[in-house]
């Protein structure tokens, strides 16, 4: 093989190595960028610490207020069988 052919082959190998490096870099960058984007944007990945789904505080307070409800009284119809006394 003459020297000209050897130089051409060497140059081609350098270009190929550079091309592999560039393509590898682009691939790695694309993978990392996609992963980062997925983490930020995909709904299956939480961005903040997870909180349990809960009703708004105002709703809870209304429900709780309603828990202080009255019982039902009526006029007595017989002799009392029990006493309510102070505790």
């Amino acid at each position: 093989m003459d020297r000209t052919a050897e130089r051409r082959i060497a140059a081609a190998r350098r270009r190929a190595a550079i091309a592999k490096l560039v393509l590898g870099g682009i691939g790695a960058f694309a993978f990392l960028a996609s992963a980062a984007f997925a983490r930020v944007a995909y709904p299956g990945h939480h961005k903040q610490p997870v909180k349990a789904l809960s009703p708004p505080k105002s709703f809870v307070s209304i429900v709780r207020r309603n828990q202080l409800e009255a019982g039902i009284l009526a006029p007595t119809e017989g002799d009392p069988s029990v006493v309510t006394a102070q505790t």
Partner: protein
Amino acid sequence: MSSFTSMGCEVVVEGASARELERVEALFEERDAAFSRFRAGSELNRVNAAGAASLVSPLFARMVEAAIWARERTGSLVDPTLGAALEAAGYDRDFAELAASEEAASSASAGSVALFGRVLVLGRGAKLDLNGVVKAAAVDDAIGLLSGPGFVSAGGDLASRGEVDVSLPGGGAVRLVSGGLATSGRTKRRWLRGGVEQHHLIDPATGRPSASPWEQVTVCGATCLAADVAAKAAFLLGYDGPDWLDERRLPGRFLAGGSAHENASWRTSLEPQELACT
């Protein structure tokens, strides 16, 4: 009708089978063992001694949750962190062992309490006293153990399944159709400290026994717990108590100087109901 003693009072049970009565007694014993201020090994004393943060049992967490609910519902009138104020007033041992003392009573303010799951965080100097909430909740839980009609009464905190006629403080009677009936007041649990009469209903504004004009307040609630919390709040509110109950449509009966004052909701609930013909 059966009765036994627990939580420093007589518990009366009607309508329970032998097996159900056993379960009711076990329930009260469990609650007393966990929440008594006067049993050295109680979980309450362990929590109060630990201060700051402590991991509590699921039952304890449930009762603290109920006590925090009561505080929220009553604008902090019924506060679970007044254990230190009770001790300052002289209620530092079982009521049966309390004796008059020349030592003057002092006061203590309410503290903070927060619950995160089963982690309880007490503010500095705060001591829990959950007795009222625990007893009323025990009555509510106990009535759930009965399979048929009946009632459970603990020191006058009453819940029924089915209708029951109830004798009221100061005379009179009423029929409890559903829910619970509770009476709070200052005529039974009282003692002398430095020549001054003390009682167990602490006003969180002063950290001392309340100077309420009422002797006893009886309230009917959807549950015994609701009735007990409302009765205590109405007592502590003094002359505003009847209206406070009316705003919530809770029937209340107030006793002072031997005469009874009934709020509008109480009177309305005892009026004969006219049946509409359709």
